[in-house]
């Protein structure tokens, strides 16, 4: 996998210290390091958020230890403050920030193009074109960082990070690495007071010019078939699409191609060399016209007259693919091309979309049911639920609709606070445990300090589920699987000033009573938080397999079932389906994870435990640590 290739390449390049906060599509870089960290003698950490991840790894690099921090594109926003300063102060050893961008926002709230950060912070951006490139270029990136004493952004996209290719290893992981650093108390460099910052800015501007003007060749800038009138410039993953398009058009002989893997700054000489005979240039790049604009500027500055095309022929939004690149390339070359006819089925028209949904047994489903029912009991029909980022965001859908906003990590609480100042309705912020540690704590403090009128619900499923179950400070485990102190989020909330109600949503009736009490205190003007504690059902299922303790399985008693569909409509559980030609639902045994919500909501008591759980099964859901 591209991410594993990056991890491996970084180890070969002598990187000693790896930090990250998980985020698709970046997660597997530090996750895979975590699996081997003790063996190869490096440090791997899940940080509490991207800002801290960046700070920690950057600190190592200013003390002369090679380091890497990885995050998804929006994670860089969280780390942007230190990112900017690091561009001024530079480093003393190779330092890489991997920004894994997500064109088409497969698993993100936007598809921002983080190459701009390179320009903003004067940090060079290296962008691989394939998994194999990622493996090689991460090593080049470390060299560039050390040559210029500057952080380097290694920017991947989903199709590099999450593609797999076979790689011939070209280097070893040295066993005898020293990961000890030395902090040089160079106050004029590390303390960015205005006077120092102004001087450092001079360094940065000079540095940027020298990178722009340097003699770049392969592997960061490679020219194929020089001297043609038509030139295609293809940075990053776009090169793969261009290569296949040229294969199909049999057009390699007609164009000069510049494969560009350094996209900030765009290096001047390779562009001028590629354009030496050019009359027309096409820049094929994913997302924003970053390279295109710089190519225009370079040609303009050097008096080269050529027509530059780019976003007029290549889509600016969404992920690129062969079928989105081929028409533009063909048009540029004046070629015809045939896109294969694809079969369209009549049935396709009736195929419903399948958005992601809460899993069977998901604690969030239980909590949402409990919250809504408690609110109904108190006749609160106009509650505003502000939302956050995680699996629980899926509660935006029917029948829950307990996520009415979702902007960024931690946002639920700040947004709830602000809304509570300007609207009359009750406001409830719903946030996951990992997200609470990431960015929810400052918002909680602010809510109390500024006397906000919102309630907080923390969904503690003992993991960072959305990104594939990484531990966090509340779990008692680290990135390498060793034990850590538990930071108890209930105590955190109490110390901020909240009256905290803890519920175990597996016990629905009891939790409902508690939730009603909590809401009542909130309506009386109390500062209230509910912590709902139950392990992610995918994790409980994994433990159940490992420990051979089965979870209960429910079934519908056909004789008692009237086909009222309460279980279907109130839970939206994917394990409950209505078979064709039937008016009564059934529970798919292989999928049921025994949460019991369907049995609870059935008005006819028609849902029963068909296979009872093994001895102590409940603990799989409720105990934080299971050994």
């Amino acid at each position, binding site marked *: 996998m591209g991410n594993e290739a990056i991890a491996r390449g970084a180890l070969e390049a002598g990187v000693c210290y790896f930090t990250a906060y998980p985020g698709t599509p970046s997660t597997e870089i530090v996750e895979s390091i975590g699996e081997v960290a003790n063996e190869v003698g490096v440090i791997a950490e899940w940080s509490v958020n991207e800002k801290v991840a960046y700070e920690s790894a950057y600190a190592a690099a200013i003390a002369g230890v090679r380091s890497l921090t990885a995050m998804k594109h929006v994670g860089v926003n969280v780390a942007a403050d230190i990112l900017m300063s690091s561009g001024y102060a530079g480093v003393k050893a190779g330092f890489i920030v991997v920004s894994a961008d997500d064109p088409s926002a497969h698993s993100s709230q936007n598809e921002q193009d983080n190459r701009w950060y390179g320009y903003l912070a004067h940090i060079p951006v290296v962008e691989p074109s*394939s998994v194999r490139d990622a493996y090689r270029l991460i090593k080049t990136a470390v060299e560039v960082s050390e040559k210029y004493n500057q952080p380097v952004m290694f920017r991947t996209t989903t*199709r590099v990070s999450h593609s797999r290719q076979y790689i011939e290893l070209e280097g070893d992981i040295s066993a005898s690495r020293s990961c000890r650093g030395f902090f040089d108390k160079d106050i004029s460099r590390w303390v960015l007071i205005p006077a120092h910052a102004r001087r450092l800015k001079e360094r940065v501007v000079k540095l940027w010019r020298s990178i722009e003007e340097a003699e770049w060749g392969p592997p960061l800038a490679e020219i194929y078939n020089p001297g043609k009138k038509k030139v295609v410039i293809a940075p990053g993953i776009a090169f793969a699409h261009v290569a296949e398009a040229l294969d199909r058009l049999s057009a390699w002989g007609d164009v000069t191609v510049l494969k560009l893997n350094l996209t900030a700054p765009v290096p001047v000489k390779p562009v001028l060399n590629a354009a030496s005979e050019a009359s027309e240039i096409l820049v094929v790049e994913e997302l924003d016209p970053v390279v295109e604009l710089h190519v225009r500027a370079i040609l303009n500055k050097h008096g080269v007259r050529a027509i530059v095309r780019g976003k007029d022929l290549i889509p600016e939004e969404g992920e690129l693919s*062969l079928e989105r690149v081929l028409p533009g390339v063909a048009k540029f070359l004046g070629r015809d091309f045939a896109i294969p006819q694809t079969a369209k089925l009549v049935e396709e028209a009736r195929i419903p979309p399948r958005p992601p949904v809460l899993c069977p047994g998901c604690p969030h489903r239980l909590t949402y049911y409990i919250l809504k029912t408690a609110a109904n009991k108190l006749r609160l029909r106009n509650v505003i639920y502000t939302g956050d980022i995680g699996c629980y965001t899926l509660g935006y859908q029917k029948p829950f609709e307990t996520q009415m906003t979702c902007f960024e990590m931690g946002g639920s609480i700040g947004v709830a606070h602000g809304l509570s100042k300007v609207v009359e309705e009750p406001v409830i912020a719903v946030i996951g445990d990992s997200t609470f540690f990431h960015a929810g704590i400052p918002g909680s403090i602010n809510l109390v300090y500024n006397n906000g009128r919102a309630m907080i619900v923390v969904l503690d499923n003992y993991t960072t589920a959305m990104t594939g179950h990484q531990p966090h400070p509340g779990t008692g485990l680290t990135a390498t699987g060793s034990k850590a102190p538990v930071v108890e989020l209930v105590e955190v909330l109490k110390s901020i000033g909240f009256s905290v109600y803890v519920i175990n949503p597996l016990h629905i009736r009891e939790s409902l009573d508690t939730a009603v009490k909590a809401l009542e205190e909130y309506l009386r003007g109390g500062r209230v938080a509910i912590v709902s504690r139950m392990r992610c059902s995918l994790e409980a299922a994994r433990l159940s397999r490992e420990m051979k303790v089965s979870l209960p399985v429910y079934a519908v008693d056909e004789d008692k079932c009237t086909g009222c569909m309460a279980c279907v409509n109130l839970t939206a559980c994917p394990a409950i389906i209505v078979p064709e030609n039937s008016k009564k639902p059934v529970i798919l045994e292989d999928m049921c994870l025994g949460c019991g919500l369907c049995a609870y909501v059935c008005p006819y008591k028609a849902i029963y435990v068909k296979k009872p759980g093994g001895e102590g099964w409940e603990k799989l859901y409720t105990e934080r640590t299971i050994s």
Partner: protein
Amino acid sequence: MPGKFNILIAGVGGQGVLTLGSLIAWASTLSGIDVTVAETHGLSQRGGSLTVHVRLNNNQTPLIPPGEADLLIGLEAIEAVRYSYYVGDRGILVVNKLRLPPPLTKPPSLRELEEGLRRAFPGRVYFYDAEKEAKQLAGSALFSNVLLLGYSLGVDGRFRSLLDPARVEEAIQLIFSRKTAEANLRAFKHGLSQGLSVAAGGAGGHPG
């Protein structure tokens, strides 16, 4: 490049779509095939519609262009129909006889889905009740995916000529823990022999 072949795996997040993709990738690598796999992670893994693109000897863009899949393995019938536009002129579809309606929706029936596919791809659609076979064989639907892979290799001679089933068996031993590897191997061989006998015109139904 010799033996280019595109495989699209379509299913529902949680069905083991990614695992099946990496099994094929390992088997291909063991056969000396240059393989590229493109996966989707994150949100769609939570019960959403999910695909994995596997390209054999096609090492430029990681995504299969629509209309160019040589084989579509549908772990679920609705998803097979959804992504059927990827299937090329000669492409074959191997589809699990399993219909999982997204919650609160009323999609076409299994028969309608099947008929639609047979109409659009006459003679190239194989419906296979992998779930039933898996339960009979190993007592759990977990083994459906390797059954489908075995079956696909059985019915698709072009796929089989590229990827030797023996390499898949090696790959199974490589990526699964010892205990599940055994059951997976059995399931794989079972699917393969059923696929082979269907291809040879034996019992089990011709593709319509």
